């Protein structure tokens, strides 16, 4: 068998002999992607652990295992890690790196060394974030939103968290920049924008958000740091500063950031649905353009987080009106996916059931997002568990679930092995049931007036929190089991062929599995649509030596 990217690599500096240094210095997009995955997944478990600790604490009213301040630090740590370390960089950094260049037939991204440097910048950010745990008064207790003036007043180590978020933001900007240039420059000859796979569209739209929204939060965090050290006054009411301005600046980034999370996830969905329906996707162009319009409109709706902040009523109306228009392109995507299944041949493999499960959970997440963008209702539901349930349905039930779908889908490509289907499905059902049990009761608690970030609560809410706790246990069991299945697959699984799913896009047209160092043996010429099926078989076939079409 020929050599794969596990056997050899290019390095940023020199030609190190040791395998370890080869990984540390690698500029190969696939290896960098895997390293991101490894790191993110480690942090991820830190955040899961804090989440579990919170759920135990909330099992019944009164203090259980921690005091109020620790709880405040716990949800901040949970939020910061989940958002800044895990889910925002998540799909772009992992799958964007690993499969996006393969999908467009490129040898690597446009700036491989920048990619390498970005990875280490990301690590630096993570280190700063984690070291705030041990330095000074401990990790910040502001919530992941860092609202002024609380973040200016608290004694905890907010500065470290802000610096970390800034550094991570920079890593995110550079990733986006790299991908934008890659997509513009390195598409295989013949591949026009409307011949790109939809995942690439998702990454493209995302990259624009990373590039143009992240600097705003970057400078906001810098201003907050300057405020704290030099008293420039802009968030300090004692000097005439307005705390609401901070919220504007923060959400100008952080709302687009939620689309930054979901758009590449939708991209994964758009890959999986046609592949396992053995049918060309319905409405390719509308899906592609809806990604772009979600990104575009997404810039203009941040104010729906400020409905009760004291913002002017006119602005509330405007933001509410605009926000509804995000739901339209999202809905169009959903209907297009369902229409793709019509008259297809639906293979319920693990990636497909993850995708279909996500259609259910994200629809709930999205629709409850619509609830809270009706201003009158948000006045009641803002900062309650209704909101918390909304975004866990959207993030966990949308982005993370689709990330798992992607992990199952591209697992054979990345590792060259197959996992056990039955076991993987069991893991799915555990997580799906656990997830709904975990978060659905929170909608009810929120509607009855359970505020978020509460360490203690009124006894009426106990029942919801307890159901939720058991849901969390089931969920995390399924989660761990899923990783066990992956681990077993990677170490002991059957070898996979280059195209185990009968998929059509270019990343499945590689000479070996896992792919060799510089991807396709030659760059293909692309004169076909991304999802061409005929009678359930991919239309396009390549001779993997010369990469010429042989169908």
């Amino acid at each position, binding site marked *: 068998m020929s050599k794969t990217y596990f056997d050899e690599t290019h390095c940023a500096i020199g030609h190190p002999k040791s395998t370890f240094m080869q990984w540390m210095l690698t500029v190969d997009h696939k290896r960098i992607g895997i390293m991101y995955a490894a790191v993110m997944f480690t942090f991820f478990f830190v955040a899961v652990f804090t989440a579990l600790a919170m759920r135990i604490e909330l099992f019944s009213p009164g203090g259980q295992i921690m005091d109020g301040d620790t709880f405040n630090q716990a949800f901040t740590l949970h939020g910061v890690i989940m958002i800044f370390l895990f889910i925002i960089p998540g799909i772009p950094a992992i799958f964007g790196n690993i499969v996006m260049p393969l999908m467009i037939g490129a040898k690597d991204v*446009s700036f491989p060394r920048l990619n390498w440097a970005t990875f280490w910048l990301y690590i630096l950010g993570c280190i700063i974030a984690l070291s705030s745990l041990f330095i000074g008064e401990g990790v910040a207790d502001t919530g992941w939103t860092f609202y002024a003036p609380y973040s200016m007043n608290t004694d905890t180590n907010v500065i470290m968290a802000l610096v970390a978020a800034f550094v991570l933001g920079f890593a995110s900007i550079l990733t986006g920049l790299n991908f934008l240039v890659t997509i513009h*420059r390195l598409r295989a000859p013949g591949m026009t924008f409307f011949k790109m796979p939809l995942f690439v569209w998702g990454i493209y739209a995302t990259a624009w958000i990373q*590039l*143009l929204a992240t600097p705003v939060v970057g400078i906001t965090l810098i201003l907050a740091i300057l405020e704290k050290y030099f008293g420039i*006054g802009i968030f*300090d009411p004692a*000097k*005439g500063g307005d705390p609401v301005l901070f919220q504007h600046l923060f959400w100008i980034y952080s709302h687009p950031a939620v689309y930054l999370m979901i758009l590449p996830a939708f991209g994964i969905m758009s890959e999986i649905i046609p592949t396992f329906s053995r049918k060309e996707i319905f409405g390719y162009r509308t899906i592609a353009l809806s990604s772009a319009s979600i990104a575009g409109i997404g810039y203009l709706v941040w104010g729906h987080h400020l409905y009760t902040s004291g913002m002017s009523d006119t602005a509330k109306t405007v933001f509410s009106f605009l926000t509804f228009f995000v739901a339209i392109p999202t809905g169009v995507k959903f209907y297009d996916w369902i229409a793709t299944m019509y008259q297809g041949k639906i293979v319920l493999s693990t990636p497909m059931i993850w995708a279909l499960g996500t259609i259910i959970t994200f629809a709930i997440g999205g629709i409850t997002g619509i609830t809270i963008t009706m201003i009158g209702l948000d006045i009641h539901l803002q900062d309650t568990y209704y909101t918390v349930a909304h975004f866990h349905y959207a993030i966990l039930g949308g982005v993370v679930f689709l990330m798992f779908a992607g992990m199952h889908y591209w697992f054979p490509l990345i590792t060259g092995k197959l996992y056990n289907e039955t076991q993987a499905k069991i893991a799915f059902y555990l997580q799906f049931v656990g997830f709904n049990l975990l978060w659905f009761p929170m909608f009810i608690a929120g509607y009855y007036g359970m505020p978020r970030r509460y360490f203690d609560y009124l006894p009426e809410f106990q029942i919801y929190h307890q159901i939720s706790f058991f849901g969390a246990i089931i969920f995390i069991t399924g989660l761990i089991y899923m990783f066990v299945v992956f681990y077993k697959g990677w170490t002991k699984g059957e070898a996979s062929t280059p195209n185990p799913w009968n998929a059509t896009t270019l990343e499945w047209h590689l000479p070996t599995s896992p792919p060799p160092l510089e991807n396709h043996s*030659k760059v293909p010429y692309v004169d076909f649509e991304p999802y061409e099926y005929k009678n359930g078989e991919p239309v396009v076939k390549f001779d993997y030596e010369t990469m010429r*079409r042989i169908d």
Partner: protein
Amino acid sequence: MSHEYVPEIATDREGNEYEVQGWQGDFYAGKLGFWLFMLTEVMMFGAMFLALAYYNTLHPQDFLDASASLNRVLGGTNTVILLISALTMGLGFLKMRTGDVKGAKLMIWATILLAIIFLVIKGFEWRAEYNHGIFLLHDQLLPESSLPFGQKLFFGLYFTMTGLHGVHIIIGIGLMLWLLQRINADKVTPEHHIFHLNIALYWDIVHLIWVFVFPYYYMIGAGGATGGH
């Protein structure tokens, strides 16, 4: 790392051949990438201007008063200095492209010199303000001083934005020194000048930011507004 660009050819079914763009030595990618980076600068300073305009809307008169008290002569001088430095930078790049490496280096040195003068003048300005009791964490800008809110915010942002602009200038000087070193090492040549191009672009965006910072801080109160404080 050895990644010399090996031209690749993609072949379609009919056997027509198409040249493939590799990432190695992709001049246009370098330029595009840097432009995208500059867009992030636009967003950053855009956000700061947003904060500025926010308080300007709340305290229009205070802003005029505060602006009137800034030293327009020094600010204007600095504007002209940056203008000229943009020219020297541009000419340097032009010389590089036409093969006049020595002239290019000279122009870069000139730019560095102008940048330093800019910083020195800025330093004088800040010092004078300090002596007037206007400085971060100092006298008039403390919460307990009676300076109106609008003025406090104006000066707070003034020091922030001119300060960050100054940081950009310092970074620019560093980059130019690095560029000189690369030229000396023959890494940047008339044939391979993407690095030079990007630093020239960087210097232009630094200038561009000043083009807006200057009138917003120094000039808006220049009209008949009643004097400072």
